[in-house]
């Protein structure tokens, strides 16, 4: 294709945060380093900085979200940006038109950064071509959720000191999960070994080509794993039959104290939330502060998003 287009593509990949796939290892490490500096700030009584004072951040959410949206909201505010959140209901307007029309409208208001969540894979990429500010992907369809992977990485580093050399299992509904995809790219990039575990019907085609080993047996897949990431069964994305029943799923793929024993002795559990307790994870296990990192993930999520906003909001 034309030379001219290639250069613009290179520019855009570092100008926006569209996915881990577009990120270099240096960029990923820079975000994580930056995020570390915000952890203690967020735990201190005075949490406000003015790094982004005068900047406008728009959160554009086409899909309902609680934690990601509030996390980005708080992150922007703590850095001193003016934050506006728009929840765009799909039923109100025709799909597609909404995205491009809204993009044009918002662009005219001179935002410095747009955080977008959209139900269609690739929507942030399309948006980034139409606006003059940075675009941060807060989850698109089944493609990527880069800030979730980055916060997961930060949480692991915070507990285990490093990612390189760790063995990480990602279990459950891999097919519908953007979190799984982003985590596969990032953990691989940072030197971990990644196993994916799930029923065959919820495993994406050619998943091994992404650099993972895939298993349908928890016992084999969890063997010697240091981190066990559980995923939510995304029933809302399932049309037709994928599984016989939730009961059967829990029996074979639900994380219980017994199944956790297959993993490394000091294995830790993660979950991007929201959890289906009793479907993919035993409810007591999810709340066990000795093994579950769920709360920490949420906490560090704010730090990671602050780092992303600081770096991309130029």
């Amino acid at each position: 294709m034309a030379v001219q287009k290639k250069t613009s593509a290179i520019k855009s990949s570092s100008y926006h945060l569209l996915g881990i796939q577009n990120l270099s290892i240096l960029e990923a490490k820079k975000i994580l380093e930056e995020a570390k500096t915000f952890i203690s700030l967020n735990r201190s009584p005075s949490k406000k900085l003015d790094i982004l004072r005068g900047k406008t951040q728009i959160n554009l959410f086409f899909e309902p979200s609680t934690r990601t949206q509030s996390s980005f909201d708080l992150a922007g505010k703590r850095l001193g940006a003016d934050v506006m959140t728009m929840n765009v209901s799909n039923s109100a307007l025709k799909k597609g038109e909404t995205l491009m029309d809204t993009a044009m409208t918002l662009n005219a208001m001179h935002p410095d950064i747009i955080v977008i969540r959209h139900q269609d894979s690739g929507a942030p990429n399309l948006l980034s071509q139409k606006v003059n500010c940075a675009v941060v992907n807060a989850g698109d369809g089944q493609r990527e959720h880069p800030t979730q992977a980055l916060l997961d990485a930060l949480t692991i580093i915070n507990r285990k000191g490093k990612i390189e050399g760790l063995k990480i299992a990602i279990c459950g509904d891999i097919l519908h999960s953007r979190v799984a995809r982003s985590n596969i790219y990032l953990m691989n990039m940072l030197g971990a070994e990644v196993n994916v575990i799930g029923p065959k019907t919820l495993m994406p085609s050619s998943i091994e080509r992404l650099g993972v080993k895939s298993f349908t047996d928890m016992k084999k897949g969890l063997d010697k794993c240091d981190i066990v990431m559980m995923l939510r069964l995304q029933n809302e994305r399932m049309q037709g039959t994928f599984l016989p029943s939730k009961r059967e799923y829990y029996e074979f793929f639900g994380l219980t104290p017994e199944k956790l024993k297959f993993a490394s002795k000091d294995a830790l559990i993660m979950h991007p939330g929201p959890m289906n307790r009793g479907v993919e994870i035993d409810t007591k296990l999810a709340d066990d502060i000795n093994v579950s990192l769920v709360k920490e993930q949420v906490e560090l999520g704010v730090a990671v998003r602050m780092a992303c906003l600081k770096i991309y909001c130029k």
Partner: protein
Amino acid sequence: MKEKILINAHIIDPSQGMDEKGSVLVDDKGKIKSIGKNVKKTDAPSAEVIDIKNYIVIPGIVDMKAFVGEPGFEYKENFRTLSQAALAGGVTSVVTMPNTKPIIDNVSMVDFIIRRGRDKASINLFPCASLTREISGKEMSEFGLLSAKGIIGFTDVIKTVQNTETMARIMDYASDIGVLIMQHVEDYELSKNGCINEGEVSTRLGLGGISYIAEKIIIERDLSLLNEFPCRYHVNQISSKESLSVIKRNKEKGLKFSVGVSINNLSLNENDIGDFKTFLKLSPPLRLEDDRIALVEGIKSGLIDVIVSDHTPEDEEGKRLPFAQAATGAVGIETLLPLALEMHHNESLPLAKIIETLTINPANILKINKGSLKKGSDADICVFDLDEPWMVNGDDLKSKSKNTSIESRKLQGKVQMTFLAGELVFKS
């Protein structure tokens, strides 16, 4: 009109096994009077002489699948713009699709389309009607009445008759009256939510995949039915290696049917979709490089009979959407021949084979007197330079819509002149 003689021509006409330097003499009625190395300027001293300068002369191309846009989608393409695009690509006969608005599924619509085409188009048009009423997949169209009005074939274009009983009845009925059934092959249950090939690319892009099985299973079904109800049956477009194996098995068994492939599936693969290029959202989808190579081989071995442009004009609004919502299809009638010539230049297909799939093969399937330069045929002629390099620029294309799947591609070979019934209608 005056007699014409095209001299210094390199004639390739697979319909008569001709590949030689010579001349083409066109009579005053626009028919081929004589052709070949033995035709001399002195044979027709009063004829207008056109020097072809050793370019290649082939029968005007017959494109078996193109969408016009009239009626209902004039903003995408109309008869005039389609004609200009076709002639610039050396295409003189076009089979038009019935998925217009309203759908071409009744006699009065056929009258309209023929009249409109006659007034506005400057190419030979061969309209299809829908296979089922309103392309609903339920009731068969009036095959007999529509054929009598000039309908060349019946197709639901981008839809497949899903109900096996309905398809069996259609084929049974069609076998008696001899109409051509052109089937889009896709099992909806298997392809729903899908928009590209199922595989690594769909996993990475987070897009729903369409497995090759969705195509294969309908071909298997239809060919089983064809065994019982031998009608004129044509598979519009195939996209995968697996489909070819089914076709091979059935053709070897002696079953009579024909198969098409889109130029897109012969020259692109799923990796070209890159970062959500919606112009490459096609149906059937682009698949693996292995599939592409198998399809080229399929042409070579004769398992695939025709190459079509699958010309599907879509305006910018329809394409500037998130991939899953974007319109499907690409324009291609103007670049059909030049892109097909790639397979000659990279030595994957003999030139005569490519020309055959673009001229006499579709004409034979359609049972029309086109695609040949035999004595007495209409002088629909395409003249092209096999080697001229150029780069595709969507904005320069004559089609009303600019959604080309090969933007900025460097091609070798370009149409220089197109004649329709002996008249020079396009000159580069």
